[in-house]
């Protein structure tokens, strides 16, 4: 059970991701946030949210998320989510390049550290790929 304010923040976050709203999402952060996404090194700075989001929106042509559960305590907001994202054609998966879109089913956890006004100071993202919906016809071996 989390407060309406935190529920609203999560809804706003995931809706923004689904709709590709870089500006709306960036406004949820403090001026110099810290972000770490998966195995990538941490990013910090005023442009960190835009870099994270721009890369995600370039790689994916659609995104859908389901919140499983969430908890908030002492400025830490955690959320467990499932996701279904469509990788755009042309995206490289290891040694192959997608000639058609492919769907990734994901599960993950995000941790938001919030300031006193509820803005995001830190965002940490971990996720696993549960499955890939593709077939041999929509990949091309890289040259």
């Amino acid at each position, binding site marked *: 059970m989390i407060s309406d304010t935190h529920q609203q923040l999560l809804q706003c976050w995931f809706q923004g991701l689904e709709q590709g709203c870089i500006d709306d999402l960036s406004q949820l952060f403090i001026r110099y946030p810290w972000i770490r996404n*998966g*195995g990538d*090194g941490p990013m910090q700075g005023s442009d960190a949210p835009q870099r994270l989001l721009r890369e995600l929106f370039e790689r994916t042509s659609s995104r859908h998320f389901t919140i499983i559960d969430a908890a*908030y*305590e002492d400025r*830490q907001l955690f959320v467990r989510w499932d996701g279904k994202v469509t990788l755009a054609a042309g995206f490289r998966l290891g040694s192959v390049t997608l000639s058609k879109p492919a769907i990734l089913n994901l*599960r993950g956890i995000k941790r938001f550290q919030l300031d006193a006004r509820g803005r995001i100071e830190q965002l*940490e993202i971990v*996720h*696993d790929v549960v499955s890939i919906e593709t077939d041999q016809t929509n990949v091309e071996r890289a040259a």
Partner: protein
Amino acid sequence: MMMNKHEFAAKYFRAQEMGDIDWIQQVCSDDVIVRESGRSETSGKAGVRDYVIALLQRTAKRKFMLHAVAEAGNVLFTSWECDVEFHNGLAMYTSGMTRFLFDNDGAIRELEVIGHELI
């Protein structure tokens, strides 16, 4: 489970450091589901045992530092960092998040471990 969830988290990660399979099995329900990055989903007490044994086979020493903890109802989230030493002496640092979902008796019904890659 009689202890509060913050105490539980500290004891759980201490048990992982010590390789205390019995304690970890004891705090899980009979139908617990275990999901860990890079491994197939397992279930039941045997699945928990397999999960911990795999951890012990991969690593010689583990030192967890809890970074953040939050609970709401029957769910507990933790964010952690871990100093890992492998059996060949190689030492690395990793981090990740663990989610515990408890049943109404306080036993772990879902254990999910999603980690950053070793860094």
